[in-house]
Structure formats: structure tokens, C-alpha cells
């Protein structure tokens, strides 16, 4: 028998007891902030394969600098089993598109983090149930209906920008004039509210309700994913639905209409149309309508806001590409798509597999949460050359009209920001119009715009601008020359 001293020493060494007792598990969750684009060392397997520590996914480092880690996952763990968060990550473009198209094998039954706040929506249906409802909502956001709304979108954008002069005189904290230069925080001055205003306009809500919508929307977004503000998010959604419920009941009795610039009736608004839609011979229930309107409000705001701010940020930090877009406005479309490839506002979608499946030698038991990482797909070097580079002229990105049935056309692949397959974002087209119209009108208005580096949040070196990482640009301070801007 060994002696007690021997045992104690050997045992403590074998299980690394002392370092466990000293170390603060909370502090361990902090991963060192690395130079942008480099991964920190989380250990290596015997064969040299880098390891991924799942606590990484909660760390500030990952939020700021995710792409090098996604690259490790793509190269070494195309299906990564995160046992701390009880889920799987799928990270390669080809795998994700396959899974998105297999609507039945990888279903969207609610278990993911959005269902708590957004409620019971189209997001959570699969197969036939999804298809038969999808067109009811989707048809109002595309094609003819949308074309008719473009003048209204342009008008809303101009109204917001024209109000800047008055706001500057009144004094607000996001517009400052000095020496013929105006400094504007584009988020507060434009991008935060513009998409919500468009959504309210299309849904036919009174202008007075927009502030409330803005609050509800902000609360719902901050409450996603079981965060500390989830209660506020749930309350906001309940308020929103209570408000909508009255409106839906009214419009059942008395439909309301959308009007064009000259006061002519364009069409009924979406809610009024939904009130008279039928599924299997039954009118849609009020709850069903309110839930999906809540989804439109939630889905139509954050994403488009992020797209506008990310696009302006990327263009202004790549001046030669910005000049090209200014010279040829038709390039706004490609700039929009390249922005969504390079820095998409939505990082991915959860799925739940219906069967036990084995993918890349990893067995995923039926009913598991499988995260499809769109961020990673968009930066998959198997599809896009030099994926970390922002290049609106890139040859390998499809920038045409996105279709549910395809993602690979003319030898190019589309980005994954809107997903693909049956659940392709129904707001893709309207979001595209909002972002490009909004950004174009902004840039027409601003003379010689440039980022006000002083006011922008900085990266760890204290000098360079903070990278976007997993979240979109939050605040964007732009200087532009005042004199000629209205000429």
C-alpha cells in the first residue's frame, strides 16, 4: 500500500487539484482578447488539432472576433458538439444549405431561443403547415405589393433626413454642427427608426403609434435568447399583441387601406388582408395574426438597421468602393449583398433533427438543437475566395434576385444572410429595398461623408475601430460637409 503522503501528492497531481481549487471558474470564462482575425490557444489534441473550449461562445472575445474560431470549426469540426450548451454547430456552407433544404429532417419546432419572446410564429412550422401559411404573409412583402410601396419608402427616408436641420436647431445628442461640418450618429438619426417606420407604414399603423412600436421592438430584441432582460421582452410582446388584438378586431369589421402619394388607394393593408384570408376554410385566428405581425415587426427592424449601418461602415472604410457606388448607383445592390455576406446581422438559425443522423462522422441524436451558423457559411473559403475581404466586385457572390429554390446560380453562390430553402426570409426583398434606398438617399444627402473616428468605439489597441464581430455596428458617427449638402 502506498503511503498517505505519496497518495496525496500523486492524486493532487493526477487531477490537477491545486490549480482547480485556486482558479476562479468565472474568470476562466474570459478568453484573452486577441488581435482581430487571430484565434487564442485553447489547447491541442495529440495530433495537433486545435481544440474548441465551449465556454468560448459566451466570451466577449468571441463576440468581437468570431471568424478565426469559426474557421477552426469549419476545418476541424464541421459538426461540433457543444456539451456545455447541449447543442451542435454546423459550420460549412454546403452542409448548411443541405440542412436548410431538408425541411423535414431538420425542422424548426420551437426549442430555439427566439420562441420565448417572438411567440408562436411561422418560424416554428415545418413542412406543409409552413408552406400553406407562408404565402399568406409572404405575398405582401414581395413583387407588385412591394413595387407599389417604393415611393412611400423613399418619402419616409427623405422625411427623416429633412428633419435633421430642425433637430440640430433644437439640440439633440446625436446631431452636432460645427465649422460647416455636421456630425451625425446615423443609428439614432436614421437607421434605428427607419425600418420600423416602413413596417408601420406597410401594416397601416397610425404615425402616433410608432414610438410605442419602437419601444416594443427594442425590448423584444433585447429579451431574445433568455437574456437578463427577457422579462421586459415578454412584457413588450404581450403589450404589442394586446395592442394588435384591438386593431385586428377593428379591421375585421372595417378594413383600412394604404394610400399612394396622390391620395389614391393602393391596396388594403396587410392586417386587413390577413383578416379576410382563409386556411382550410377558416379565417385566421386573431392570435395567429398578432403573433406573425409581431414577427414582422421583430424581423423587419434589427436586421435592416444592421444592414444599413454595416453597409455604410464597410463602404466608408473602403473609400475606393464607396466612390464606385457613388458613381454607379446600380452597384448599391451588389454592395448590399456583399455587406450581408461579409457581416450579416443574423448569425444563424436553430434546427432540430427529426432522425438520428450522422454527418461528418458525428452522430446527432433525434431532437437535438443544431445551430446552422450563417456567419460561418458566408466566410467559408470553400465557397468564397478570401472571405474576410470586403469586395463588392467579387466574382464568386451571386447578387441577383434571391429565390427560395436556389442559392447557386451562374456558377456563383448567394450569401446565407437570408437563409435558403423553405424558410428563406420573406422580408428579404423588402429589406433589400429599404437598405439600398435608405443608404442611397443618405449618401446623396451627405456631402463628402467620412467616419468620425474620434467618436467611434475602439478596438483593444485603442486606435483602430472596433470590429463588428457577432453584432452589427451599433453606433456610426459620420461627418459630412454642411455647405454643399443641400445644393
Amino acid at each position, binding site marked *: *500500500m*502506498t503511503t*498517505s503522503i505519496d*497518495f*496525496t501528492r*500523486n*492524486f493532487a*497531481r493526477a487531477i490537477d*487539484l491545486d490549480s*482547480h*481549487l485556486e482558479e476562479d*471558474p*468565472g474568470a476562466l*470564462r474570459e478568453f484573452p482578447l486577441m488581435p482581430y482575425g487571430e484565434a487564442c490557444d*485553447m*489547447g491541442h489534441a*495529440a495530433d495537433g488539432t486545435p*481544440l474548441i*473550449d*465551449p465556454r468560448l461562445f459566451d466570451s466577449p472575445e468571441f463576440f468581437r472576433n468570431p471568424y478565426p474560431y469559426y474557421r477552426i470549426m469549419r476545418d476541424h469540426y464541421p459538426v461540433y458538439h*457543444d*456539451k*456545455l*450548451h447541449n*447543442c451542435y454547430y454546423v459550420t460549412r456552407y*454546403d*452542409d448548411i*444549405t*443541405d*440542412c436548410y433544404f*431538408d*425541411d*423535414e429532417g431538420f*425542422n424548426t*419546432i*420551437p*426549442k430555439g431561443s427566439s*420562441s*420565448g419572446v417572438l*411567440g*408562436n410564429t411561422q418560424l416554428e412550422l*415545418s*413542412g406543409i403547415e409552413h408552406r400553406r401559411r407562408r404565402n399568406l404573409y409572404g405575398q405582401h412583402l414581395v413583387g407588385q405589393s412591394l413595387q407599389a410601396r417604393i415611393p412611400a419608402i423613399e418619402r419616409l427616408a427623405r422625411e427623416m433626413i429633412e428633419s435633421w436641420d430642425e433637430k440640430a436647431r433644437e439640440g439633440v445628442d446625436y446631431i452636432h454642427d460645427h465649422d460647416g461640418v455636421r456630425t451625425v450618429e446615423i443609428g439614432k438619426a436614421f437607421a434605428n427608426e427607419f425600418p420600423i417606420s416602413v413596417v408601420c407604414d406597410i401594416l397601416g399603423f397610425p404615425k402616433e403609434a410608432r414610438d410605442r412600436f419602437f419601444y416594443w421592438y427594442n425590448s423584444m430584441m433585447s429579451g431574445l*435568447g*433568455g*437574456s*437578463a432582460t*427577457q422579462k421586459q421582452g415578454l412584457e413588450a410582446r*404581450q403589450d404589442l399583441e394586446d395592442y394588435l388584438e384591438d386593431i385586428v378586431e377593428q379591421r375585421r369589421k372595417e378594413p383600412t387601406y394604404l394610400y399612394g402619394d396622390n391620395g389614391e388607394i393602393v391596396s388594403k393593408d396587410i392586417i386587413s388582408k390577413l383578416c379576410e384570408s382563409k386556411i382550410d376554410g377558416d379565417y385566421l385566428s386573431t392570435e*395567429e395574426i398578432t403573433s406573425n405581425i409581431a414577427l414582422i415587426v421583430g424581423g423587419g427592424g434589427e436586421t435592416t438597421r444592421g444592414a444599413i449601418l454595416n453597409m455604410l461602415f464597410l463602404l466608408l472604410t473602403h473609400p475606393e468602393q464607396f466612390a464606385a457606388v457613388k458613381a454607379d448607383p446600380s452597384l448599391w445592390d451588389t454592395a448590399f449583398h456583399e455587406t450581408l455576406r461579409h457581416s450579416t446581422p443574423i448569425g444563424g438559425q436553430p434546427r*432540430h433533427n*427529426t*432522425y*438520428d443522423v*450522422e*454527418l461528418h462522422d458525428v452522430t446527432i*441524436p*433525434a*431532437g437535438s*438543437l443544431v445551430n446552422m451558423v450563417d456567419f460561418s457559411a458566408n466566410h467559408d473559403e470553400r465557397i468564397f475566395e478570401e472571405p474576410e475581404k470586403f469586395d463588392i466586385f467579387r466574382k464568386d457572390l451571386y447578387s441577383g434576385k434571391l429565390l427560395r429554390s436556389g442559392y447557386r446560380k451562374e456558377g456563383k453562390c448567394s450569401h446565407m444572410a437570408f437563409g435558403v430553402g423553405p424558410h428563406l426570409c420573406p422580408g428579404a426583398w423588402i429589406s433589400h429595398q429599404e437598405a439600398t434606398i435608405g443608404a442611397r438617399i443618405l449618401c446623396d444627402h451627405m456631402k463628402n461623408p467620412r467616419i468620425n473616428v474620434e467618436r467611434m468605439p475602439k478596438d483593444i489597441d485603442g486606435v483602430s475601430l472596433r470590429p463588428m464581430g457577432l453584432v452589427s455596428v451599433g453606433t456610426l458617427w459620420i461627418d459630412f460637409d454642411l455647405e454643399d449638402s443641400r445644393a
Partner: protein
Amino acid sequence: MKAGQQEARHTPESRQDAPGQDGQDKIVYGRNGVPIHIRGGSRTTGGGYRTYEVHQRMRVGESTAKVKPNAMLTREYLEDPYPTLAILRENYPCYRDWIGNSYWISRYDDVTSIFTDDANFETRPKLWFYGREDFGRDFGQALPVLFAHAQRTDAHAQPVAEAILSELAGLGRADLAVTFAARYAMEMLARVLDLPAADFDFFVERYWKMQQGYGWSPKAEQAGLDAMSELARYFEPLMEQRRANPGDDLISAVAGLETETGPTTAEDLVTTLLERDHETLHGALANMWYLLLTHPEQLELLREDERLVKYAYQETVRHSTPVLEAKRFARQEVERFGRLLPEGALLICSAGAANRDPRVFQDPDRFEVNRKDLCRREPRGQYRADGLPTGITFGLGQPTKHPAVPEDRPRSLYAITRDTVVTASKCVLEILPGLRLADGAKPGLRALRVGDMHTCWQLPATWEA
């Protein structure tokens, strides 16, 4: 608004080529030619089809504002999980943990109902968490293995305790947590396997790495897998020897088993060891002496009446169970606790919370060896007997299903572990007279990492040498 919960309705199988119908595996190729291997006979009942009415969402009143989302990952929780668990138990009996993608079950009746419901919930083997289910087979329930374990444990419980303690006795002081509790559990395991003494250190290190590796940490997983292969290589010649000259030990028992595919392998032996509970003997012994030394008045009771040692063990695993939680997975979509639990859902059944449920135990935070509302028999097939609840110790698995222990079966693991702890503790009382906590010592319980066993790692004590 309508109620959030409605009964699940499933549409029948609709896809003609749905995999698994004929129980055959099949490979489908996606649009990009990515092979997706679909296991036969594994289709979920929820499937991709569900009527619109079936839904659940969180209502305002269900929000979980009283617990921070990462509360169970903090250092405070690793040291003292009970305040957090009390919040869950009193407010959110089926807490949806979004960060961990799981549900926390915290009331006594709920936890026991999940743990005894094998039709709807399953426990996955440790090998599954390793992602290496093909590594080996678990023969822990084979009768010869159970007998070998029971007989060798009974034969060595007292001599091993006496040997360790008499070595310590002359020192007058020691850290009982590692030097006694951890060592005793390992020495006992070495005796059950009848390992050569020279290999003890080698074995202990590999064994612990193996047992620590199936959690969430990839580094520990790597170390654990390496340790498993090393152990398998080490056991191979030993198994050959014992197959030729069998003894009464556990290695001989596994080596002697005949299976459909021929003789058992060293990997099977390693798997059998892996799946066996190792934490209760070590953890319960350490926690029990931690509690007794920090509650000297209870220790006095034991000194007066040795019969109370057994009750002290039972009260320990109730008050401070080393295995705080067990993971169960929903086999199918099932409604429980006012929620629709989706198929595959992970339920964290918290023994720590259930054992301190005031609905079941009076003044549950109090450590009282003479507790009147705790069952003193081994529970059979359920967690209550004589109208009294037992403390839940998951490490020991479920209570035995047999209404009475048949003659051709050994005692349950529950009883064997309990008797071993009692034997060892009686030796402590005898061999270390005047045992008390070292002056100035402030011992505590602590899980080393998220999900690890909650036990005492430093317990400095003195006695009359």
C-alpha cells in the same frame, strides 16, 4: 388569448421514403452531395409536421427574472448551489435554461417522477458523452460482475480502512478529504479489481482522468480518451492471465463472461469501470466527515450510539449529495409540469434541490443525523418506503426494481456503498480518538468544474495521537 398549452397531435407518417420505417440505416445525399447518414428506427414522433395549434411560448408570468441566465455557471454556484436551487425550486419548478438548452427539475416529486419514468426519459451512458459508443460494452449489470464487486467490497472494506487509518493515527493531524476519503475509494477499487500494488498510482491517475473527461471540456475529454486507451492496453495482459487463472475479483468476472461475439475485451472492462459510479463512495465519505466535523454536536451523538453512523450517511447524501444532478433526455415529446417538453430535451434532475425540498423534508437545510422524516431502509422501485422519502443519490442509479432481493442476486449498489461508508466511518471513530476540526480551519464543499461532483477537498483535522 388562449391557453398556451394544448394537447399534441401528430399527423401520421407521410413521407413514403421516410427512413427508419423498416429499421434500416440509410444514406441520403443533399444537394451538395453531402452524405447524411440516417439511422434506422429513430424517427421522432414530432417530425416535421405539427398542427398550428400545438405550440408553447413563454408568457409574461413565466419569465424567470429571479435567476440570471448563467447563474449555474458561476463560482458561487460551484461552491454553494443551494441558494440558487432554492430559487428555482420555489419559483420555476421546470426552469428553461436557454443558455444550457435544458430544463431544470428541482422539486422532489418531480425529480423522482422523471427518474423512474423510463418510458419517456432515458439516461445516456458516459460513453455517449464521449462520443465513443463503439468503444466497448458495459457489463456492470452482469451477475458475476455484481457478485465479484459485492464480495470483494465486503471482504476489504474494513481491512483497507484500518490500514489507512492506522498509518494516519500516529500523525495526529491530516487532511481527511484527500488523504482518507479519496484514497479509501481508490484503494477499495484497486482491491475490487485486485490490482498489483505497484500499478496503483498508474491506475488512479488514468481512472480519474477517464471519469473527468465526459463533461463539456474538450481538454479533459482528450485526456480521458487517452487514459481509456492506456487503461485498455494495461488491462489486456491482466485479463488474459485471469481468464486462464480466474480469481474472485472483478477483472476475472468480466474476463470470464461469454458474449455472442466471443470473449470480452479490455475495452469492455474499461467501459464497465467507466459507467460504474465512483463518486458516491468518495464524495459521501468526504461530505459526511465534513458535516460531522462542522457539526460537533452531531458527531457526539454518533460517539454515543454507533447505530447512528448509518443514519448519518443517509442524512449526508440527503443534505449534501456529492452528485448534484443527473441528466435525462426526453425520448419523445411529452407534457410535464405544464410544459410541452420536446423530444430530445435535456432535463437536469437536480438532486441537490430535491433533497432540500421543504415539501418533503422539514427544515431541510439542517443537518440532523437523527432525522425522523428520512426513510431508513433501502427504497425499492421507488424513492419512498414506509411512507418516508429517501435522499436522492443519483450516482447509485435508480432504486432496485426488485420488491425483495432474491437469493441469486447480490445486494444493490446502494446498499453496498452505504455499508462500505458505514464500515469505514466506524473505523474512523475507533482509530482516531478525539477527532475534531483543525484549529482555524474553514472547510467547504466545492465542485471543481461545472458539472463535477460537489464535495469537500480540504478537511484538516486533528486527533489524539
